[in-house]
């Protein structure tokens, strides 16, 4: 070990001394050394002229191509070669020679500027080798992972295609089934409709008869009440005691008015009262129940349906209620109130319910209804299944239509999302879908672009993804994001930035872009230059 160390020190010392004199003109790379022969006239490398050798590196530019001053800053277009033993050799523009800034790690560019440069080549070389090694490992592992991803994608692709084929076959069957069930449903609904109509009609007739009965009873009751002297006749004066019957609303029922109501007669018997009753029954207050308001006729459309719900289209209502559920809580409260309210309002009606409620369907009708309902349920179920099948097929077909790379290696990113949290925001990349940004401490999400296209350079468009048409910027363009893909073992968003306003740049590592590692020798190549 000691020997090796000593040797290294020696080499180091020599390179810090005046190695250029020994090596040939300063700043010339090994490959061009042959053109610079000590004490022989030098011909500019572009062949433009020949000059004495003492004009090479004499700090004056003689050659148009700058080749006579490889080691000075004299030529505006010259370049300086640093050997950088232990690290990479490098060319720098001549203008960086002796400018007081250390550019070459071997310090050779600052030989006359007073800049205190340290030889950092060994360290840089070590670091670079480490990085390279790490990169190679990553690339190697990444590439293996990529193979795996390709396999998976291939398998997945095949599976999906088979699945789609299967599904399309199933869909055909479903289509047929839906049609059959539709016919069954329609066939069952016709007799159901007829039976229900019959039932309704019968009930209407029955209700009319009952109403008539009730009216007659009321009339009889009223006759008895009005016939104060119980002489079997209602007289004009007896009628006058009921001021509410006053036609001109002046508060009193005059004799003439009363007589008018009685069709001009002085008094009427029970049977004639039948013709008077229609004139007064709307206003007539029974003496026994003076405060009771006139019974309100329930409008026909509010007639309580029978227990069995025979509504043939349940979906629209369901949809509405779902939407409303998503709305404000206020509205939910309102609904709750609604639910609670009816009992109090409807209480008086309850007493009439027995007579107003439609009687249950008879067994035959009910049977028809049950049969039709079953047919409807069956049909709907089949139709829903068909719709779901369609969706599935569409989704798979959409997925299959994406360009997931030459070997479908990007397939695995589909329907995934990756997040990166920065100081202020959480960035979210959902490949082939969208990019978004959400403030870390609350606030709404901003769309930074939806999937546009691959937009890398011509030789490999799969190195960049473009997401476009995001949320518009105030007085600016719509937000867009470029995603730069680099090889990595992990699939991670590594950084985000906004180089121009509303144009985002996201860095993303994935094994899917790892290239097959070249079979190169990684050992340091500095010895060549030494």
């Amino acid at each position, binding site marked *: 070990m000691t020997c090796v160390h000593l040797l290294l020190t020696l080499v180091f010392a020599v390179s810090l001394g005046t190695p250029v004199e020994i090596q040939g003109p300063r700043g010339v790379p090994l490959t061009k050394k042959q053109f610079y022969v000590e004490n022989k006239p030098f011909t500019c490398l572009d062949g433009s002229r020949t000059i004495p050798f003492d004009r090479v590196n*004499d*700090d*004056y530019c003689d050659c148009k191509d700058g080749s006579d001053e490889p080691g000075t*800053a*004299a030529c*505006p277009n010259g370049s300086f070669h640093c050997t950088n033993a232990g690290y990479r050799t490098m060319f720098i*523009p001549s*203008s*960086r020679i002796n*400018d*007081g*800034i250390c550019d070459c790690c071997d310090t050779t560019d600052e030989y006359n500027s007073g800049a205190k440069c340290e030889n950092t080549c060994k360290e840089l070389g070590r670091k670079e080798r480490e990085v390279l090694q790490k990169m190679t490992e990553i690339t190697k592992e990444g590439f293996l992972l990529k193979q795996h991803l390709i396999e998976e994608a291939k398998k997945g692709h095949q599976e999906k295609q088979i699945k789609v084929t299967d599904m399309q076959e199933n869909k055909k069957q479903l289509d047929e089934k839906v049609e059959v069930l539709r016919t069954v449903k329609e066939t069952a609904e016709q007799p159901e409709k007829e039976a229900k109509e019959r039932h309704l009609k019968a009930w209407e007739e029955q209700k009319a008869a009952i109403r008539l009965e009730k009216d007659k009873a009321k009339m009889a009751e009223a006759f008895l009440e009005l016939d104060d002297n119980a002489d079997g006749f209602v007289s004009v004066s007896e009628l006058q005691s009921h001021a509410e019957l006053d036609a001109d609303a002046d508060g009193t029922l005059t004799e003439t008015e009363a007589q008018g109501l009685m069709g001009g007669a002085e008094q009427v018997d029970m049977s004639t009262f039948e013709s008077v009753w229609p004139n007064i029954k709307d206003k007539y207050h029974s003496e026994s129940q003076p405060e009771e308001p006139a019974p309100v006729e329930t409008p026909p459309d509010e007639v309580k349906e029978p227990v069995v719900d025979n509504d043939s289209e349940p979906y629209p209502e369901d949809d509405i209620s779902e939407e409303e559920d998503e709305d404000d809580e206020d509205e939910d409260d309102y609904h709750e109130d609604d639910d609670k309210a009816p009992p109090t309002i409807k209480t008086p009606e309850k007493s009439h319910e027995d007579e107003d409620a439609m009687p249950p369907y008879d067994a035959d009708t009910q049977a028809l209804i049950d049969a039709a309902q079953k047919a409807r349920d069956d049909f709907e179920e089949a139709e829903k299944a068909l719709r779901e099948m369609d969706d599935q097929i569409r989704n798979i077909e959409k997925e299959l239509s994406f360009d997931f790379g030459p070997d479908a290696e990007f397939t695995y990113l589909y329907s995934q999302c990756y997040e990166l949290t920065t*100081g*202020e925001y959480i960035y979210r990349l959902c490949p082939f879908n969208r990019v978004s940004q959400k403030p870390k401490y609350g606030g709404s999400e901003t769309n930074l672009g939806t999937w546009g296209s691959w937009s890398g350079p011509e030789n490999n468009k799969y190195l960049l993804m473009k997401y476009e048409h995001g949320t518009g*910027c105030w*007085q*600016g363009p719509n937000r867009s994001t470029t995603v730069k893909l680099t090889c990595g073992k992990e699939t991670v968003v590594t950084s985000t*930035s*906004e*180089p*121009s*306003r*509303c*144009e985002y740049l996201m860095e993303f590592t994935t094994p899917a872009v790892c290239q097959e590692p070249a079979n190169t020798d990684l050992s340091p190549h500095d010895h060549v230059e030494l």
Partner: protein
Amino acid sequence: EAGLNAVCPRWRLSVLSKDDNGVVLSLGVKNQRLIVSARPFRLDIMQGPEVLLSLNSRGLLAFEHLRLHKDTDKEEVGLWEETFKSHTDTKPNGPTSISLDFSLPGVEHVYGIPEHADDLKLKTTDGGDPYRLYNLDVFQYELYNPMALYGSIPVMLAHNTQRTMGIFWLNAAETWVDISSNTTGKTVFGKMLDFVQGSSENPQTDVRWISESGIIDVFIMLGPKPSDVFSQYASLTGTQSFPPLASLGYHQCRWNYNDQEDVKSVDQGFDQHDIPYDFIWLDIEHADGKRYFTWDPHKFPQPKEMLQGLMDKKRKMVAIVDPHIRVDSGYKIHNEITSKDFYVKNKDGRNYEGWCWPGNSGYPDFTKPEMRAWWASMFAYDQYEGSMENLFTWNDMNEPSVFNGPEVTMHKDALHGKWEHRDIHNIYGLYVQMATAEGQTRRSGGVERPFVLTRAFFAGSQRYGAVWTGDNAAEWDHLKISIPMCLSLGLVGVSFCGADVGGFFKNPSTELLVRWYQTGAYQPFFRAHAHLDTTRREPWLFGPENTALIREVIRQRYALLPYWYQLLYQAHKTGMPVMRPLWVDYPKDTATFTIDDEFLIGRDLLVHPVTEEGSRGVTAYLPGAGEVWYDVHTFQKHNGAQNLYIPVTLSSIPVFQRGGSIIPRKDRVRRSSTCMENDPYTLYVALSPKKFAEGELYIDDGHSFNYDTKKEFIHRSLTFANNALTSNNLCPNCNFLTSSWIEKVLILGASKPSKVLLKMDGKETPVDFEFDTSMSVLTLRKPGMNAGADWTLLLQ
């Protein structure tokens, strides 16, 4: 008095004669007299039988004296209160305006009174608005319009073939200038007819100045040469500050470089593309919540690390410090200003508050000397955290801009001590820059020169740094107008002027951007800047060909830095503008009087930038009968006093060197000006037809006041005469050592010598040379003498 120099020469006038109605006074110079007439009152300045200038000859002198508001007064609308939109000006002193007229017999061309986005030659204002001077933060300003912009310099120059004069109306209140002329509307033919018929009345320009308040305080500068007017005006308001050499390099700015990482990668971009630059700039987003003197803790957590990184590359940074201060009890600057009671007050005596970038803001009263001293102390390294010696400052929004104020500025009845804002409005911005520059000087113990850019300005602002033309737009017309705008400023003392390269608002086309770099590289202050909403436009983002074009022109700028620096030194010493209209050096050539699409840099370079889209050629006027001009790129010689058509491509920048001049260049362009400090010079000797040329060479350390305090500089005259080029010391008692040397001498328009000898230290040594017959260019190879030495090169 801030506009004025501290010491102003003055002397007594002697009475020549006197009668009941007036006196005749001698002005001390030759046969110049001032005739004072009492009824009607007027002043006439005469030279011999000629009237040079008359005051109040039209009787427009007006003076609304201060008075108390009495309830018994008849109310006239606007007299004691005015409203503009939703703003009310309480006008506690009532109307206070002043006015005076000036007549200029024999004058058809007047210039100056910036800032307006208009032609160099001022137009008559008959039937239109007068030129307005009222510092305003104008959003997307209109061109060819007398509307007020960000700065005001109430100085007008009048010029004819015989004489140049100036009028300095010292008033910082809102000011209007009306111009009329008796030759307006006359066609060239009409003028000719007058001439032939001999009926021509003498052309005359009449000017009327009106200010809202203050006193009539006027300085007349009688010339007679343009350079005399410049030095006369300089004796009143001082000269251009001598900036650090690096600030003449290229500045890369954008609203905003987002974070330290961004700064680093832009810095590296310049090196990767081998483009020089000296300053990178940070706009308002760098500060923590727009609290100036602070750094955003997330984006710029380690400002010193960033500045050190730039320093390692010999580069610098500018960070913005605006004069509106966030009202925030957690902000040191605000708290100190509050406790020291340094804020401007509103009419009720409470702190004036307005809306600006940080939200609710206070405005320090920069008219107070104690306030300025305190502000200056805030730039000390221990006060301004994260600052280092390579951090400089930019004062924006110092009109002052008040988003919710009348015309986006401060209410006129706000109070600066006992003075209303209306009285001092136009000088507020000057004081901001003054205090900032003072702070930068003080932080180095008075050793280092400051660099401060300002948007608002007033007469005298030239003493404190650079000025730019505000928020222009990426449009060809805005590129064009940058020339007359900076020329007008140069005429009234402000030499260090530039426009945002590329245009601030909107995105420039690639062609416009390239043309703007080509123009900006030949204007004194060379900074690219862009609005937050624009796409990135660093020079390498437009393909390799355009990168190469931009690189080339920035390199041309850097090669010429020795010349620029020498011109700034000259401006600092004499008041001569750096970027000049042609008529300044060709005052008798009427063809030059209205030219503002080309200009001179110093006396020796003529630039005609290409400012038309898709241009295939430009016609440049080369002045000077019997003179010659050399194309600086090809060395082709052209005769003076001609309109020269120059075919152009996208790479063309028509620039000519005057025959008879010597320009020193540093042709080894490096990544920043500081890197070029010790590099050798190449002398470009452009011979006149009489085989004569002269020039100067100025060298100092580039950044300190030692040139002034210790006479540490080299100033040499270079003369080519009788086939000998000689370097003579212009300052024998100066001492400065340079390691720069003369690497090459190019003599344009030379004939081939048989031998060239260098005479130095009593020795003669032969010098190698080459001669290019086609262009008559003699190149002397590596004469090698130190740039500070005495020497002669003999051509035999």
